[in-house]
């Protein structure tokens, strides 16, 4: 600070400032966008964060197709229309765990104290993080579809339906990320968030119709797989991508997503505000 040259501008005294104790909706949106921008800059600075949404869909798609394809569908090509939607849902939903883990890491850092000392919308660091993560879901969705196409997957639904299927998965993952954000806010360490989340996700994604036909499962498992919301989402994506049909399962998936947000958004926000 030997370099200080000009005298800093005169500071406006407290009494002459226009002060308000509430943050407006406009400011909340602006703050959220800025925090989302921060999330994107962080991704650009640490691209290794994107491994789970880039490398993972490629490896999973290749592995599952060539390992299970022959056994389940009698060939890789015949398995792809069932597999790609399943892999897509699993990958993107698994990605939403990162939201909770990163939120926990962020809240433990010194920079969070600064956010809390700024006159910004309290919710912005949370809402910004959730918003920035939709980019991760979009990347995972695109890569999974592209790998599928390269392997010879020709969905009959057409481009519009594929895009719609992708958006449905992204919206669902965003909804589910509220659950992990909740764990992120209440958990003590980032690794425990990762642990708890995987414990919930693994049974949920595998006990579904994502990889195998439900009727191949034993009784109780078949029942669980048929009511599992993940199964409905997978079915919805299959119908959209393969047949171009927006069916009951798509509506059910959207409803499920809405219910999750309705329950977990207030819970998360309340837990978060108590700490923020």
């Amino acid at each position, binding site marked *: *600070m*030997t*370099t*200080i*040259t*000009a*005298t*800093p*501008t*005169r*500071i*406006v*005294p*407290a*009494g*002459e*400032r*226009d*002060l*308000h*104790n*509430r*943050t*407006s*909706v406009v*400011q909340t949106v*602006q*703050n959220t966008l*800025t*925090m989302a*921008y*921060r999330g994107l*800059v*962080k991704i650009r*600075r*640490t691209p290794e964060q994107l491994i789970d949404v880039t490398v993972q869909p490629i490896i999973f798609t290749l592995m599952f197709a060539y390992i299970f394809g022959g056994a389940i569908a009698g060939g890789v090509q015949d398995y792809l229309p069932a597999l790609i939607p399943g892999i897509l849902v699993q990958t993107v939903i698994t990605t939403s765990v990162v939201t909770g883990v990163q939120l926990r890491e962020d809240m433990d*850092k*010194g*920079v*969070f*104290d*600064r*956010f*809390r*000392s*700024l*006159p*910004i919308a309290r919710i*912005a660091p949370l809402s910004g993080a959730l918003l920035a993560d939709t980019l991760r879901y979009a990347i995972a969705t695109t890569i999974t579809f592209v790998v599928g196409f390269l392997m010879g997957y020709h969905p009959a639904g057409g481009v519009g339906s594929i895009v719609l299927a992708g958006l449905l998965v992204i919206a669902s993952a965003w909804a589910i990320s509220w659950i992990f954000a909740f764990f992120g806010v209440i958990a003590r360490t980032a690794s425990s968030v990762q642990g708890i989340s995987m414990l919930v996700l693994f049974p949920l994604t595998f006990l579904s119709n994502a990889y195998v036909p439900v009727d191949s499962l034993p009784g109780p498992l078949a029942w669980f797989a048929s009511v599992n919301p993940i199964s409905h989402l997978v079915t919805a994506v299959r119908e959209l991508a393969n047949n171009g049909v927006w069916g009951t399962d798509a509506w059910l998936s959207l409803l499920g997503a809405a219910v999750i947000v309705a329950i977990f958004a207030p819970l998360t926000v309340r837990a978060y505000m108590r700490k923020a």
Partner: protein
Amino acid sequence: MTTTSPATRVASGTLAVRAEGLVKTFGDNRAVDGVDLNVESGTVYGVLGPNGAGKTTTINMLATLMRPDGGRAEIFGHDVVREPNVVRQLIGVTGQFASVDETLSATENLVIFGRLLGLSRTDAKKKSVDLLERFGLTEAARRPLKKFSGGMRRRLDLAASLIAQPPLIFLDEPTTGLDPRTRGQMWDTIRELVASGSTVLLTTQYLDEADQLADRIAVIDHGRVVAEGTSDDLKASVGTSSLILRLADLADGADALRAIEQVLGVRATLSPEATRITAPMADADRVADLLITLREAGIHLTEMSVQKPTLDEVFLTITGAPATADADSEQKTEALA
């Protein structure tokens, strides 16, 4: 929602900080146990105390980062619990640990904080360029913070607190862990802040730092303010510096003590190994007379130094117990050769 109620406008001349009986407990530990503070606008106020005395907790409550369990606090007349967002518009906080984003560059950090504070993209960029230049960080602007030194990080942290040009700035141990040169630079910056109209509340473990910067000082220990006043008040209560002499010939001990009593009019003490004499130094001018007397008497010295009162002595005098932390041990030998 953005309307200004009449209550949020304050007459100038209000205290920048007014805290009454602030209390914060963590389990059984009363970290802050009834702290009162009054800080006049446009001054530097030092909160002096060892580690664990409650300094950071006090700042956290004043800066709306923690909710007080008891008492009340106002920033420029705005209650920290009832009007937290107004208070946040009036303060800048620089914590003990850098509160900036490690993975981002200095510019990115400042731009994001600027945007959050409502600046447009262009203004935020301009502001960050200005601040980085002012704090001598321009060359490092694009580097990620992981490669920053401790001093650079502190400077960036302070720069981030100044984006909104808040009238009150909290500095929690701004120079702890900095080398003497960087510390001097930080002191200059703090003086400039006050010159531009800011009020600064800083915490420190160093009496010397409080002495250099603060108009008034509160000494805090075990969550309580144990002494408050100007630096002169505080020093008067602590006592004076001591003169330390090391003799070339141990046999001169008794003669040297006699000479000191004659010239300085105080009773000096001889260390057990009889090599070191410690005398309270009330009047620095007469030390020259003493040295001349010693030379004329043929008493040779190997070393002469002056020891300032240390934080330990402040505590000893004020609380009757040594300071609880070991952090001030590095202060003990601030000897002048």
